[in-house]
């Protein structure tokens, strides 16, 4: 715990709604403790703005411990800011120095409209899942869990893939605004498990179709998604997605 506070110079993207153009506004924030989280720093700025009678900065946030995936802004050009495998809420101000200038922007992704300031509409990710990111099993009739053994290595790998929090950083980091890592994580999670085999081919085809229709770009192997992912989803997932897709379009009759 440190007692040295900082003064920071923020450039924050302000945009009234989806229809109007936005622009950067400058704010000076004093008394920032290094132990504050990035969102707590924004909270403090919003309190200042309220006292000046100014419109508060809108941003998404909820759990503030890196699991819900609600938060996420681009900080000095990096989704979720500096630091490996951290969400914006887990980023602490000790990563900055007194006098630093910080540029804060929303995710810049065609399929994610800016709603206001730093908040964007990520419902496109829900739509990718709706297209097939599930196992069709109804409540009430599942077989005994241990009747289907799954090797520890397979279960662990599936868990690595299932760890995605749907924050959108992968698409925000990608120069093509691609949702490949997001879709690949879910396709991989379900393709790896025996439970996911029945709909495996159809799932890959449908999710990728939805992704294209929603306006996400394609993958050109830059790897920025993997670098920005707060949950460390490995880019190998995209290789698996491509295999799944190829297998699907070559061998599936639907």
């Amino acid at each position, binding site marked *: 715990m440190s007692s040295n506070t900082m003064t920071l110079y923020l450039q924050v993207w302000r945009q009234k709604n989806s229809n109007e153009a936005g622009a950067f506004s400058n704010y000076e924030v004093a008394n920032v403790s290094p132990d504050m989280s990035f969102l707590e720093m924004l909270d403090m700025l919003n309190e200042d703005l309220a006292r000046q009678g100014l419109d508060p900065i809108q941003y998404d946030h909820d759990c503030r411990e890196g699991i819900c995936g609600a938060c996420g802004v681009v900080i000095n050009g990096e989704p979720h800011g500096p630091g490996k495998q951290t969400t914006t809420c887990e980023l602490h101000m000790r990563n900055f120095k007194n006098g630093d200038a910080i540029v804060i922007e929303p995710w810049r992704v065609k399929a994610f409209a800016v709603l206001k300031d730093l908040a964007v509409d990520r419902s496109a990710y829900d739509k990718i899942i709706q297209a097939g990111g599930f196992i069709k099993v109804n409540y009430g009739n599942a077989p005994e869990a241990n009747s289907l053994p799954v090797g520890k290595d397979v279960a662990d790998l599936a*868990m690595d893939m299932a760890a995605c929090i749907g924050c959108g950083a992968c698409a925000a980091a990608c120069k093509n605004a691609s949702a490949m890592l997001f879709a690949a994580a879910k396709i991989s999670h379900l393709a790896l498990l025996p439970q996911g085999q029945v709909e495996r081919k159809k799932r890959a085809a449908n999710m990728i179709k939805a992704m294209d229709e929603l306006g996400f770009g394609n993958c050109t192997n830059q790897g920025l998604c993997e670098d920005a992912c707060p949950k460390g989803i490995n880019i190998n997932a995209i290789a698996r997605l491509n295999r799944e897709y190829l297998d699907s379009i070559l061998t599936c009759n639907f």
Partner: protein
Amino acid sequence: MSKIKQLDSNSPTGPIETAWDRHRFGLKLVNPANRRKLKVIVVGTGLAGGGSAGALAEMGYNVEAFTILDTPRRSHSIAAQGGVNAAKNYPNDNDSIWRLFYDTVKGGDFRSNEYSTYRLAQCANNIIDQATAQGVPFSREYGGTLSNRSFGGVQVSRTFYARGQTGQQLLLGVYQSLMKEVNRGKVKLHTRKEMLDLVMIDGKARGIITRDLVTGKLERHYGDAVILATGGFCKTYYLSTNAMASNGASQMRCYEKGAYMANPCFTQIHPTSLPVMGPFMSKQTLMSEALRNDGRIWVPKAKGDHRPPNDIPEDERDYFLERRYPSFGNLTPRDITSRAIKQAVDSGHGVGPTKVAVYLDFKDAIKRDGLTTIKEKYGNLFDMYTHIVDESPYKVPMRIYPTAHFTMGGLWVDYNLMSSIPGLFVGGEASYEYHGANRLGANSLMSATTDGCFVLPTTVSNYLGENFKTLAKIDDKHDEFEKAEKSVKDRITRLLNIKGSKTPNQFHKELGKVMFDYVGIERTEEKLKHAIEEITKIKQLYHKDLLLSGDDAMNIELERALRVEDSINLGLLMARDALERKESCGAHYRMDFVDDEGEAQRDDENFCHVAAWEYQGQSEVPLRHIEQLKFNNIALTKRSYK
């Protein structure tokens, strides 16, 4: 006094093992063709809300599901780390449904309903099967079977887990099933919409008024039944392990419409969260109870010992849980652990810069099992700790302190999970069911999933079957919708026009401090009376001095202001309930009701009941109704973990 009611939970009678099956057989059904004509409104999309929305849609009902977040996948069920209980007895350690039932009732200090708690223990096995079928990647043994671990308050290993992200994985399973139904057109999903009122027609819950958090537009939604599954209300304490949206506003909306609020004073203060780092802190991150399987809690034996932890020799450390509770050691239930930690700190043995913390040490576990094993079990939690505190738990012990974590209280419901308003059902943490005065670790995912996926689909169908012919045909032009929308609109205008000097967050922090200091881990009559006075002052000032910036469109401050207003009223109710419950039980520890050893002293003669509060007006004292609890299957005994 004649206004005080004895509430009937409509529980079955007779042998408890067959009660749910017998009860279910007696429930009404709706034939598949008629289900298509009925619509259920579900508020909240976590395990209870998302589960019931998905399950009812699968059955053929039309469902409209609402969340204040931007997608159902972020609901707060996601944050449960450690696991979900089920008495599968895979480890062959003599577990059974009966034992899970027994542990839950005892853990709750005999303040829950036996019949519903038994049903919970029964349904738990089904959760594991269901989640596995949905593709939830539970942790497994090398042979491919599911792994288990232990949690506090029990002596068997019955907790299933997906690393430290069990809640996330269970929720994603439920979310994916919900998305399947959205894709099928059976669920209409409303995101970023906040319920601001319940609409009742002919005395029955028939709809809600929502505010679109993007445009600010008020909307009317009607249906044939309403399910409320909006989680708990730990944010009443401002600082808690919960997400920022974990407020009780939706329950308070229903409470003010006549739904009873049950046992609001039963709040779990979780022993192992990160300590407060400064006044700016907006939440205290939880360190899962699973850590107490391997971590040992201690303080220096000497008061005010300033040495770094690793410099304090073994014989100068007080492992106070192991000393005081040798049978359970570091795995005592949460309420007992939190009190023991507070007592260690209050007696001058606190550690760290603020001295308001104790150590949770993994040194011995790392020596015993190796770094790799500990990393595999707890890696993500250790990383989380390092992000926040800037120290590595692999090298120095964690510093932890208790904070608000779970509200056992909530809206009163009967055995069918229906509130005191016909047609309003409540599930998960939003209701008071199952956990009595204290919830055991890994029992919350169990109860939310059970309600959502297995109980509500059955009991809501019964209500619709009973009322199918008599429910009036309505639409959103009905007078009651007009009235409700107008009252919401007036409320927003009122808050925006106060133009005072203090932000909602400032008021919220003040409320939280009163709640934690006076309605927290240790309570007394004097403290509670003081709390009621202080909260009443905050309430009065709120209506005079609130400063709200921005307009009535997308506005993060207005969202807060509406929720804080409800939190203040809820805080008042929590303090009042704590004052009237003149006994200590579970997490409700009244220092004026303790035994010779300082342990909680229950009063079964006078308080073996659920208190259910009925709203009487903004400045009136609410009525305290009673649901008497009967224990025919488990003997009412003193809860001891020594």
